[in-house]
């Protein structure tokens, strides 16, 4: 009992003959010949020659080709997607086709009305095929979902292949029109050219009228489609925001709830999350290894994270970093660390300004303060990491502090005129 169904399945899924598709990767015109060849298991060139030879029978080859083109589904997209056609390869078949036609004309001397009619109908079929097949079936399905009444119009909005669409649409339209006019001309009872020309003019006037009537509706649909497209873009953005909120904010909130008793931890978490959200919302992302402002902001963020304080950072102007600017940032970082450690306050102000001739950094707190003349010996950080570092790189450091009113560390780094001129040039 259990064996039978599996056997049946195996029979069904066994790859016997490839299904009839339009080939995507080895196509020359629309992939019909290659698809048929795959299905029959013969070389594609033979099928192509057969199509071309059938042209001789009142354009039967063309008609057949157009019919298959319209009916056959396109092969599913494969990974190595090379849909580029080599038009040079089409040439031999065009030559063969031309030869067949000339031979036919010479042998039978004249082309009968029936033959011409067949040709023209084939022409109409090809034109219609061009219009219908100027896009993937998947995309057409998508269009018809968004716009049930006019799926084909959606192609106009898709800007990526709008030009190709227009070219093909117009080309197809011309083919169809030519074919229909030809058929009318051949089968017209009077057979005189004037009537045909009149007919063409009437047809054009009719088309114009249709355009005038349908125009507003088309425009509305066009706008509707564009709005739908914008909606999709917004949806993508919303998804990005949702991901951000989910990955970071919810995580932080969970941590805050778990550590609700520990004020320091809560503050640190909240501040870190705030900074990351702000960066995400407002700041251009500059690399801390390249730009002065970004490097300072990163140093301030590190101090905030380590000591659970707030560093009010204001940076005016910017420039590229080098070794000396790096030293300035390191000294500023040390000053912030000192303030965080010893000042016993929640907020430290960091202000930096990049001027053409010098960079200045000010780190200020309203904390405990100290008497510089007495404490400097024990504070190795101040002497070595701040004052020493600045003088080594040709800058200077001033430390102003008074017990009770707070401390301000002022750092100055003169910069050469040449490199200063390069910095604004890069910005503009």
């Amino acid at each position, binding site marked *: 009992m259990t064996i039978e169904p599996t056997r049946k399945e195996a029979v069904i899924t066994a790859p016997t003959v490839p299904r009839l598709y339009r080939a995507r990767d080895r196509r020359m015109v629309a992939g019909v010949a290659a698809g048929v060849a795959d299905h029959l298991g013969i070389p594609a060139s033979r099928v192509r020659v057969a199509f071309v030879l059938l042209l001789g029978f009142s354009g039967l080859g063309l008609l057949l080709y157009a019919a298959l083109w319209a009916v056959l589904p396109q092969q599913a997209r494969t990974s190595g997607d090379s849909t580029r056609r080599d038009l040079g390869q089409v040439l031999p078949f065009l030559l063969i086709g031309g030869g067949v036609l000339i031979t036919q004309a010479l042998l039978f001397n004249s082309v009968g009305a029936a033959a011409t009619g067949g040709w023209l109908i084939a022409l109409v079929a090809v034109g219609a095929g061009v219009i219908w097949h100027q896009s993937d079936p998947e995309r057409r399905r998508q269009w018809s979902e968004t716009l049930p009444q006019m799926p084909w119009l959606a192609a106009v909005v898709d800007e990526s292949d709008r030009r190709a669409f227009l070219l093909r649409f117009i080309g197809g339209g011309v083919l169809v029109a030519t074919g229909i006019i030809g058929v009318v001309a051949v089968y017209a009872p009077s057979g005189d050219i004037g009537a045909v020309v009149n007919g063409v003019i009437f047809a054009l006037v009719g088309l114009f009228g249709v355009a005038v009537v349908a125009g507003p509706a088309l425009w509305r649909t066009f706008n509707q489609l564009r709005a739908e497209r914008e909606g999709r873009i917004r949806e993508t953005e919303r998804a990005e925001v949702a991901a951000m909120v989910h990955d970071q904010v919810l995580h932080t909130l969970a941590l805050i709830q778990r550590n609700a008793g520990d004020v320091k931890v809560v503050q640190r978490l909240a501040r870190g999350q705030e900074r990351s959200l702000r960066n995400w919302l407002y700041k251009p992302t500059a690399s801390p290894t390249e730009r002065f402002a970004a490097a300072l902001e990163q140093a301030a963020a590190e101090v905030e994270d380590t000591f659970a304080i707030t560093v009010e950072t*204001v940076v*005016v102007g*910017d420039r590229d970093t080098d070794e000396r600017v790096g030293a300035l940032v390191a000294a500023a970082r040390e000053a912030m660390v000192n303030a965080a450690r010893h000042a016993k306050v929640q*907020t430290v102000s960091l202000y930096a*300004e990049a001027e053409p001739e010098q960079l200045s950094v000010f780190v200020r707190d*309203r904390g405990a303060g100290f008497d510089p003349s007495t404490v400097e010996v024990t504070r190795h950080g101040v002497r070595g990491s701040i004052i020493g570092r600045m003088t080594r790189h040709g800058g200077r450091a001033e430390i102003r502090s008074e017990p009770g009113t707070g401390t301000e560390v002022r750092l100055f780094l003169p910069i050469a005129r040449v490199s200063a001129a390069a910095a*604004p040039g890069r910005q503009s």
Partner: protein
Amino acid sequence: MTDNPTPTDAPQALRVFVVDDHAMFRAGVRAELAGRVDVIGEASTVAEAVSRIGALEPDVVLLDVHMPDGGGRAVLEVVRRTHPQVRFLALSVSDAAEDVIGLIRAGARGYVTKTISSDELAAAIRRVAEGDAVFSPRLAGFVLDAFASRSDAAVADPELDQLTNREREVLRLLARGYAYKEIAKELFISIKTVETHVSNVLRKLQMSNRYELSRWAADRRLV
């Protein structure tokens, strides 16, 4: 503008109106300011704010930058036309340059962030009520950046489009976190003079047509 200074030790109850779309924040401000100023009303939408401010005529409006239907800017533009005596202090979590500069140019007399302490907020409200300007350190930084003396920038009106050296010094100290009193001490001038400098900067910020002021945010994005 400063013809009627209020003594800081005996503050008269200023009538303050709070506009913010977050009820939690309005309640927080109300609680923080209790006893310092008189919060006479609040509004959560632009339309509500416009009608109630017009009816109540408060001394100072605390204005949120980001709200539906045009934000604080929409409130400013309507109320400034009908009630020019009402003063606005912008209060926001946003540090984006276009928000800050936009609100100031629409007529707000100051800008502080929502993380400000209640003491500082009360002081800022008093200052705005007296016709002075309130700059947060970050706003001072923005202004210094926007008015940076670039040799290639053409200056149409030197009186409006440039900052004096003194104004620049005051702004720098503001950006460094100095209070007005500390700035006065540092520069050996009176607090009144510091206030005058800041008010002048505010006027330039509102009136100047400097390219940077309109294009500031966009420039910032490009850097």
